[in-house]
């Protein structure tokens, strides 16, 4: 090796130091922040601030003209949620949401179990046909019932033909429950299917082997093992049913005001913003709690 080929002198400038490592980590952090920046800023302005405004209004008062004002702000609006009319609406909403959940579970459980007994090819096709209504336009699917249930509609003519008289359930709580079940049944089926599908069939066979009857093996083995799916599915049906707005508006009558419609009314017609705001916050709290339960039940993995 000649002298000219001797490599250049080692410079220490490029050696690593804790300062360099920190600077590199900082640059990395800055990059992340910049990437998140646009969405962060957007959600702060157009989500966090609106949420804050609603929160503020839930503590507001109303002046003589019914306008929301912040003098004497306090828990007035929350206290008024205990008024009989609001309480009735809350209970009715809860009851209809529970009923919807129960019906979905009773229909959805055997259906999901049935799916798991099919061959994989058939099962895929069957699932796609659950998926299609799941993703198609919700408003239109509710409207379809309006057409069917209406006066002279298909249903009432069938019952008439059968000699049961014209069935008039449109604009009743029954119609609302029917619409909610129709809308949310897929939300029950899909997590149920996911949790039943992963249960080892051999466990049920083992149960049968140990002299369990069909009912016993369902009650003692299948059902307990599919519990995460039952919980997840129930929450997925219950929560949107509780806050439902479109379905009761289309299929329900004046006497079946539910939570969602009541909140909307507070803003659009009654102009009682504080009560509407506090009620939406209560609804949100229910939703948050349910979401936490959902994740606890393993919803993330379903």
């Amino acid at each position, binding site marked *: 090796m000649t002298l000219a080929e001797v490599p250049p002198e080692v*410079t220490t400038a490029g*050696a690593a130091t804790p300062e360099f490592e920190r600077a590199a980590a900082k640059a990395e952090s800055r990059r992340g922040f910049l990437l998140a920046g646009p969405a962060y800023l957007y959600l702060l302005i157009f989500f966090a601030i609106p949420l804050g405004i609603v929160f503020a209004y839930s503590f507001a008062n109303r002046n003589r003209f019914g306008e929301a004002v912040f003098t004497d702000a306090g828990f007035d609006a929350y206290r008024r949620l205990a008024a009989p009319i609001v309480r009735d609406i809350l209970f009715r909403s809860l009851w209809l949401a529970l009923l919807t959940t129960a019906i979905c579970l009773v229909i959805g459980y055997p259906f999901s179990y049935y799916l798991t007994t099919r061959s994989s090819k058939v099962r895929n096709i069957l699932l796609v046909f659950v998926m299609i209504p799941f993703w198609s336009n919700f408003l239109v699917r509710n409207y379809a019932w309006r057409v069917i249930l209406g006066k002279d509609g298909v249903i009432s003519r069938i019952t008439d033909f059968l000699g049961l008289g014209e069935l008039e359930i449109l604009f009743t709580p029954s119609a609302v429950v029917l619409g909610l079940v129709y809308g949310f049944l897929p939300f029950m089926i899909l997590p149920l299917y996911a949790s039943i599908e992963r249960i080892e069939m051999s466990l049920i066979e083992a149960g049968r082997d140990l002299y369990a009857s069909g009912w016993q093996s369902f009650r003692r083995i299948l059902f307990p093992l599919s519990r995460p799916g039952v919980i997840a599915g129930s929450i997925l049906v219950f929560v949107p049913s509780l806050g439902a707005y479109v379905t009761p508006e289309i299929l329900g009558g004046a006497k079946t005001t539910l939570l969602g419609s009541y909140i909307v009314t507070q803003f659009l017609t009654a102009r009682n913003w504080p009560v509407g705001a506090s009620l939406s916050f209560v609804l949100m709290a229910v939703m948050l709690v349910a979401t936490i339960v959902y994740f606890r039940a393993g919803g993330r993995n379903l």
Partner: protein
Amino acid sequence: MTDPVPAVTITGITKRFGDVTAVDDIDLEIGDGEFFALLGPSGCGKTTTLRMIAGLDFPTMGSLQIFGDEVGTLPPNKRPVNTVFQAYALFPHMNVADNVAFGLKMQKVERAERDRRVAEAVGLVQLGGMESRRPNQLSGGQQQRVALARALVNRPKVLLLDEPLGALDLKLRQEMQLELKALQREVGITFVFVTHDQEEALTMSDRIAVMHEGRLLQVGTPEEIYQRPANRFVADFIGRTNLLEATVASSEEVVLSNGMRVAAASEHPTGTKVAVSLRPEQAFLYRRGAAPAGWPTIDGVLREVTYVGNALVHTVAVDWITIEVRTPYRSTETTPEVGDEVSVSWEPGGVTVVGD
């Protein structure tokens, strides 16, 4: 004339992740053209060391040179090294040819030159005709070759390999060991590879660095490491051995825990607790009293004999421990049977003293 410049020079490198010190003040030189192994159990810092050479992690402290150029703070795309990743990390959306051509494209090597070099690299790893296949259409061994070609096509100054054979089954792994070695001789560049498999390291490398808990315990040729382990951990990790607790009596002699004096050179001060490493194949088994005169001998009872194909492994219970003795298997010989009274013996100087 000057000394040849090492391919990789690591001086005082430390890497901390929060409170955890992954690599603790390492000094290491890897020579030009060496096949070098970083060996150690998982979590010993070997992969972190490799990643720092590649530029995928920055050291907390220290100097890292490649052929004399300081690169410690350069990003991976500015370093003249390439990596064969664990599980290969082939781009699943590109075919073999595009995978191999990726580095050249990024370096803006012109089309004709690129095609020529890709063809050459694909030929080198014997994948001619597979150019338009996707990674998921290849076997594990073929994917490994693509990963090699993808790195080598860039003519790196140093090739880094992270557990290159870890994903292959035993038979294929043994084939690839030889093939990798041949490939390295053919291309003549420095290979640095990480493995937790001591047998693989011994078979393939020119030199081995044994790491444990972020520290470098010993660097040497496979023979040095096997025959003269620097400490108890290395002796135990590399191959199989019997470790007999002992105390240094003088620079020429140690005392075993049963009071027996054994000739063994050591540099430890008198009175130091050490261990004597007796390799199973360097121990001999005799019927009680038949050991050659002048050889260190320990009496015991034969507890178990295991036939392992070309050898017999005997487990002998002596006073305070059990000792493993490995003897070549010859069907014509009669050997002691389980329950027999035997002696374990070794040639004077056939043991190594290892400290903590």
